[in-house]
């Protein structure tokens, strides 16, 4: 075990990464190279098939459309509307799930009772709820927000409940025997213990929420990237559809790299640190 760790730490090519500037940026260079290869294949296939640009857009026509949509003020409005819906849906869904997770988790009997139900609802995709939401609330932003809350809340809630149930009862008893109140048990034991589970659920929910956003905007919105994607296909302007798709991907990469990964890393490091201290 220690030998393997030693090899990983010292030997592998990545060990040189810190010393050579080019190697340090290798993951980024490789990532960009992956995109470049796909774009090159896309351009070659467009030339080889010789289809109309309206039917099979080329990278250049997509770039042209991207610039045009920004110049006309169309893309920024769709992006900001989608972002506002996404952020509010994910934030509300997360808060609701964490509050419910901790409340259910306070009583193991209730937590065990709720876990199969939460798991059952987790499996029912938001797409199947949207027709009902439309019937109950009509077309509009409410439907998209509800779909986003739903799709974020269940993975987070499920993982929080699992986390709460995995906390050894002896920890809770130990803190209680020292005179801790219920609030202190939550703050000092439950919340730190469920953080890694929470991050797993949050990451899954945040990813699902992007898909729910597109679907919701296709059905129940007049703005947003989902609407742009759908409108482009309806107008047979597939370049617009592809611009919408690429914008969606770029936004997700941005969220993932800038917020989710650092947050997850920080959470896991903190968790590791706590475990290390306990062991030491």
């Amino acid at each position: 075990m220690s030998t393997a760790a030693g090899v990983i730490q010292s030997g592998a090519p990545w060990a040189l990464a810190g010393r050579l500037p080019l190697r340090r940026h290798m993951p980024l260079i490789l990532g960009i190279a992956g995109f470049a290869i796909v774009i090159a294949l896309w351009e070659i296939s467009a030339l080889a098939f010789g289809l109309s640009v309206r039917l099979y857009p080329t990278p250049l026509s997509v770039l042209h459309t991207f610039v045009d949509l920004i110049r006309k003020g169309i893309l920024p409005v769709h992006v900001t509307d989608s972002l506002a819906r996404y952020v509010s849906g994910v934030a509300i869904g997360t808060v609701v799930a964490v509050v419910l997770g901790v409340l259910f988790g306070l009583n193991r009997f209730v937590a065990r009772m709720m876990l199969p139900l939460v798991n059952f609802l987790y499996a029912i995709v938001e797409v199947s709820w949207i027709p009902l939401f439309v019937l109950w609330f009509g077309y509009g932003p409410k439907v998209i927000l509800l779909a986003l809350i739903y799709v974020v809340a269940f993975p987070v809630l499920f993982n929080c409940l699992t986390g709460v149930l995995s906390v050894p009862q002896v920890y809770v008893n130990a803190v209680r025997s020292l005179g801790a109140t219920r609030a202190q048990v939550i703050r000092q034991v439950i919340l730190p213990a469920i953080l890694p589970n929470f991050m797993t659920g949050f990451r899954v929910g945040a990813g699902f929420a992007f898909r729910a956003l597109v679907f919701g905007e296709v059905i129940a919105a007049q703005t947003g990237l989902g609407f742009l994607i759908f409108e482009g296909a309806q107008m047979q302007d597939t370049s617009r559809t592809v611009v919408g798709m690429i914008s969606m991907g770029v936004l997700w990469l941005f969220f993932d790299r800038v917020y989710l990964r650092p947050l997850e890393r920080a959470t896991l490091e903190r968790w590791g640190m706590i475990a290390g201290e306990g062991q030491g």
Partner: protein
Amino acid sequence: MNAGVLKSRPVLVTLALAALVFAYWGWSALAGAHKLTDAEIARAAEDGNPGRLDIKVVLPFTPEQFHFMRLQDIGRMAGADASSVNLRGVSVKAARALARRYWVSDIVPLEPQ
């Protein structure tokens, strides 16, 4: 607060984005004031309908459905051509907000009918 948190990537990127938004907001406010001056607002005022303007929104491109929908939200459409849209009954506040949009070249008073 922990200095490490302030230097973390999420915080730095959020601050950079906030600075960009703030800079854009300032620039658009300045540009908007040039596109629609107080003198133009006075000339565009509707007869017998104080606080409402009749304006011609000049665009650097041919307007699309997207632009018509947004412009209809703030006033009554009264014609359009390849690079402009005429609007009636627009509030001063909405006209000033429209002038701040970077995709609007200019806003001029609409000629009387």
